[in-house]
């Protein structure tokens, strides 16, 4: 399939990532046919694209949904309404395979977990660890709950503002729940906390799964967009800001939950202490409001001094400790996204909401992987490969990969990340191709074009916005750099090979400004 899109593409690239993502901004001076007509994410693709699918051997293997007709509505419960559309992952992974593009879309590493983590899973099958093959305690495998408790008390929250009496009274049995990855923790939490009609606040852009999970729980997603400040092209955290007044305006008597994600997917923003204290202050005025804080990227920090990771549960002397569930997982930290070990830590009455649902949904999460992570957490704090800890080593590795991606985008001559300077380039794009009736948001179309023509796949962030704010994503693409160097270098070559013409900085800057503030 092909796209009808603008002849002239002005591109500003700014380098904004603080963890896995690099947001590249693309600007169109002529809108062309790329209009955001379709507000409900039912973006169709050709059956041909879908059928292509993936082979078993492909590690990106996410099968498209089958092409049989949708089941009759009399048969299925209403909770499936609206969930029949393919997710952005179902669209782009097969497309990447079909066009043999370098997939910098999906956020998982293309390398193995570290040896010491793998060794621990092996140990969990040893006779000495027999219990690791049978049902875990439903709420959480106790060795893991204990290891988590110790890690938060001795390391993660040790220097935080959480009052010491709360910190030292943290109990593995009552203050911790584990589940099948944080997505599952969120599912259980929302099912346990949200009643039909409740509102759930999501900060846009948001991890796309959140909004569907909210609806599954009978809740109504309410969107509050992060705003872009074009004058602050320093880093993601400065570029994307949260207007506290705007957030406050979205809170009503029906607001039950606020989902916070820091470090933030897809922007890479890390919420700083002022922002978190501001949110905490606001939330504390609403004692029935619960914050679900998704912190899975917490260890992927590039400047711990300047931009540390802070848990909102701890700020202002634990001001909203009683209203917050802090969530994280092993997947991103230990490069084992397929192990699905996620957890929540928080006050007992909120943990119970998760465990109450879990006992009927999962019964209990997988045991051997929980068991392995319980020991991996301890080992990760020790000196590793010449670094003070595994976490320091991890960040150093990602820093290097981030550099390769920055250079790749820079050398391509079309997308120039800049920190702090900004370069703006205007380019021509090809107009030939089959006509299509498909209408989709611009970033979606650009991502498809980048895949099919340039041979690099990035994720269109409009997938992470609610229907009213899709346009805010028009000029962005999300690139992942959790890939090995050869992959990144190949992406670099392909971006370089495609010659994007340039425009003058000032005119494009003006155009961009106008565009982004609309």
């Amino acid at each position, binding site marked *: 399939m092909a796209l009808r899109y603008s002849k002239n593409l002005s591109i500003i690239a700014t380098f904004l990532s603080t963890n896995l993502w690099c947001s590249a901004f693309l600007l169109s001076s002529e809108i062309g046919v790329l209009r955001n007509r379709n507000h409900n994410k039912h973006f169709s693709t050709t059956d041909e694209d879908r059928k292509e699918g993936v082979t*078993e051997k492909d*590690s990106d*293997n*996410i*099968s498209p*949904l*089958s092409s*049989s007709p949708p089941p009759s509505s*009399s*048969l*299925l*419960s*209403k909770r*499936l309404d609206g*969930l029949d559309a393919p997710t952005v*992952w179902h669209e782009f992974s097969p497309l990447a395979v079909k066009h043999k593009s370098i997939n910098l879309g*999906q956020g*998982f*590493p*293309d390398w*193995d*977990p570290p040896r010491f983590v*793998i060794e621990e*899973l*092996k140990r969990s*099958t040893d*006779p000495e660890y*027999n*219990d690791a*093959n*049978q*049902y*875990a305690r439903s709420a959480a495998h106790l060795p893991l709950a204990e290891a988590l408790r110790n890690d938060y008390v001795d390391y993660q929250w040790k220097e935080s503002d959480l009052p010491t009496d709360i910190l030292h009274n943290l109990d593995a049995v009552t203050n911790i729940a584990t*589940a*099948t*990855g944080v*997505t*599952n923790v969120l*599912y259980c939490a929302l*099912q346990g906390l949200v009643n039909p009609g409740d509102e759930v606040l999501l900060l846009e852009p948001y991890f796309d*799964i959140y909004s*569907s999970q909210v609806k*599954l729980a009978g809740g109504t997603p309410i969107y509050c967009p992060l705003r872009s400040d074009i004058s602050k092209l320093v880093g993601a955290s400065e570029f994307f800001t949260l207007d506290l007044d705007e957030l406050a305006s979205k809170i009503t008597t029906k607001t039950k939950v606020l989902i916070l994600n820091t470090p933030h997917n897809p922007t890479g923003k890390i919420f700083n202490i002022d922002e978190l204290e501001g949110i905490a202050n606001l939330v504390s005025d609403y004692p029935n409001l619960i914050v679900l804080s998704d912190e899975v990227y917490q260890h992927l920090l590039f400047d711990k001094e300047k931009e540390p990771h802070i848990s909102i549960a701890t700020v202002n002397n634990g001001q909203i400790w009683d209203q917050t569930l802090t969530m994280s997982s092993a997947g991103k930290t230990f*490069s*084992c*996204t*397929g*192990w*699905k070990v996620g957890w929540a830590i928080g006050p007992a009455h909120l943990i119970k909401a998760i465990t*109450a*649902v879990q006992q*009927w*949904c*999962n*019964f*209990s999460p*997988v*045991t*051997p*992987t929980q068991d392995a992570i319980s020991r991996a957490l301890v080992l990760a704090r020790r000196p590793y490969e010449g670094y003070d800890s595994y976490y320091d080593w991890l960040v150093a590795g990602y820093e290097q990969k981030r550099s390769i991606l920055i250079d790749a985008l820079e050398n391509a001559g079309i997308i120039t990340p800049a920190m702090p300077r900004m370069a703006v380039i205007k380019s021509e794009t090809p107009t030939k191709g089959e006509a299509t009736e498909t209408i989709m948001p611009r970033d979606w179309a650009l991502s498809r074009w980048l895949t099919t023509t340039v041979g690099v796949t990035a994720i269109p962030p409009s997938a992470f916005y609610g229907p009213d704010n899709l346009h805010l994503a028009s000029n962005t693409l999300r690139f992942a750099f959790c890939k090995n160097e050869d992959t990144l270098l190949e992406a670099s070559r392909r971006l370089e090979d495609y010659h994007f013409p340039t425009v003058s900085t000032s005119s494009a800057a003006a155009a961009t400004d106008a565009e982004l503030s609309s």
Partner: protein
Amino acid sequence: TGPTVWTEFNRIGQEHNPVNLGQGFPDWLPPKFAVDSLVEAVLDSAQSPHQYTRSAGHPNLVNQLARRYSIHMRKEIDPMNEVAVTVGASQALYLSLQTLVRPGDEVILFEPFFDLYVNQVKLAGGTPVFVPLRFVPYTDKIDGQDEDEVRGGDWVLYRDELMKVVSPRTKAIILNSPHNPTGKIFTRTEMELIAESLDLAGPDCVVLSDEVYKYIIHAPPKEESVSDSPICAGHIHFASLPGMWDRTITISSAGKTFSATGWQAGWCVGPNRLIKPIHQLLPYIQFCASTVIQEALARSLSRADQPYEGYASYYEYLKAKYTRKRDLLVDALTEAGFAVPNYDVTPGGGFFILARPGKAIQRSIPEKYILAKNEAAPGGVARQDWALCQWMAEEVGLLCIPSSPFFSSERVQEGAADSFIRVAFCKTDETIEAAAAALRQMK
């Protein structure tokens, strides 16, 4: 929420440390080839099953499952569209109910039932409707035994019990065979009854067939059934009955079969119209189930057909192992004065025995336990089954589970559960011997 039979007896277990025949999981390792499969999967950097996999199920695993179910069902199963992988059979049930049940829908459960079902039905907004299995004691005379002594028997599904509650409001029927807690194997006639009842329910009604114990059929039915799967002797897959493929979601898991309940690898198999909605939900539940576990199971499945420990396959070995343990427990219980099923005449599967205390045992239960107030017990009061189990756990040194949590509160009040306790034999021979020793004290 609140204390349950599990939390209560767990607590008692920890306080008094009795021999534990309560928990429904083995106290031995999975077979070596399964453990090796997990280790190999973990160490395989070529395949590297450490990252996200397909939401609907890891390709290597769904291919293996489709291969086997194609044989079971005698039809070609499409791995990509007719199989879904879940976190254990529990989640397979949960998701099936979530896709099917709307507020006001009724779901039929046969009593006694695995207690998880009730709350899963309610969570989906449905109303559980109970169809009792009737206990029919054996009628043959036993020398030296009082006529009114407690006896073993069969659990039977009667046509009118089922037909009178099935209606167009019925959205699902949960069939569990082999059955927890009775061990019953539903007969072909009973399954045909269920199939027939679907006509009363209407075209939208679906049967959820929970078959997790199907490879532990220690007392297969005597009559040969044409519906038996050639690779799962003694078990009739409900979906393989005429016309039933399209009306059934078949659910099973690796846990009981491979003594690996902690792997939590379960699945649904069925027509695409029923499986597709589950596929649609899965990304939002957890995105995908554990890749490394799915890969380990895929490899284990291809190995389980090989000769094992002197048996033609691992499945043969498993059945023989459980048959032997069953006999050990049957002897111990019978000697102590319990009435149990006669597995020469009553087909049985799974690893539980629903045992009935004889009169002597009933008389021995200390008064303080009987009808004692207990928040966790159905009705808030410890009836005979609960009292017996509590006494046995605290003072006799053997932990069993009362049967009342597996019955509806109405039937409990009628006394249907009073004379039954659930005893597990998925334990090492040493553990069962220790249980026998404790039981001997009761005489």
